[in-house]
């Protein structure tokens, strides 16, 4: 059974309908477990006190913000190479989800930084990169909405996604470089690679899995909507032609 079977819209609708209830249940369980455990049952951290609890929403959101764009990139490539409409629609469906995750990462990052640095916003390279990523998402979504013909829109947004990915990576390095030139080299010590003690790590992993499942669930729901909308547009066009 090749994965390309799901490129067929009908097969996709059937399979996603069957899978969705399980996905939703799993998502709720993981998210609930991860966040409740993290919020209520973990101790305070030595340096950051109770603010470390923000990690359970900030880090998973930030991770998924990046992963969403990577998924859009892969889906865009599949569209350009194999012309599967479901792929193009899935990329379109994923963009608002990625945008929301980016915004959550930004706001929680700023809120976390405020008591520690004393200001609401700091041009930390990571936060800055996420701000730029936010703009890339907005541009992508805007381009989909601006172009009338759906296949043309799919082509253009796919190319934009690819070029945008290169520049997003470049911007990440540029932002790191740029921050070195600033007076305050304050960088968030939110790095997952840093030694996060087990007691924080376990609920964090569950939270990350939960966010990942949330992403998949939302993308499936939204892709189903896109497929229906596309079919609707085709029917309406035929009606108009009488």
């Amino acid at each position, binding site marked *: 059974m090749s994965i390309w079977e799901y490129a067929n819209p009908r097969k996709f609708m059937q399979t996603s309908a069957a899978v969705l209830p399980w996905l939703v249940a799993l998502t709720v369980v993981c998210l609930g477990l991860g*966040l409740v455990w993290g*919020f*209520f049952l973990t101790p*305070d951290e030595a340096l*950051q*006190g*109770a*603010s470390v*609890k*923000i990690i359970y*929403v*900030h880090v998973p*959101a930030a991770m998924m913000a990046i992963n969403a764009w990577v998924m859009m990139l892969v889906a865009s490539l599949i569209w350009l190479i194999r012309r599967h409409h479901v792929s193009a629609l899935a990329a379109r469906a994923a963009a*608002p*989800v990625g945008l*929301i995750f980016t*915004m*959550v990462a930004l*706001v*929680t990052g700023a*809120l*976390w930084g*405020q*008591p520690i640095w004393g200001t609401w916003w700091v041009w930390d390279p990571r936060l800055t990169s996420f701000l730029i990523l936010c703009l890339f998402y907005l541009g992508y979504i805007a381009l989909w909405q601006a172009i009338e013909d759906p296949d043309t829109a799919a082509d253009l947004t796919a190319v934009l996604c690819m070029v945008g990915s290169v520049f997003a990576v470049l911007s990440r390095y540029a932002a790191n470089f740029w921050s070195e030139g600033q007076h305050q080299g304050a960088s968030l010590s939110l790095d997952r690679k840093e030694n996060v003690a087990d007691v924080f790590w376990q609920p964090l992993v569950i939270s990350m899995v939960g966010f990942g499942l*949330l992403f998949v669930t*939302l993308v499936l*729901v*939204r892709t*189903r*909507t896109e497929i*229906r*909308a596309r*079919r*609707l547009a085709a*029917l*309406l066009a035929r*009606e108009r032609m009488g």
Partner: protein
Amino acid sequence: MMPDLGKYAVAVLGSYAVAILLIGGLVVLSLWQGARARAALRAAEARVVEARAERANG
């Protein structure tokens, strides 16, 4: 029940609140858009069936 958040209360509660609001909003929006598309498609497909039936009878 609620842990003592000390001076970080605003930051922590605010973060969770924003996350729940934004993500919850997206979920609600996605479900609403889905329901709307489903209803409109159903209506359009019903019209197709009707038109076909008319042509068959007329």
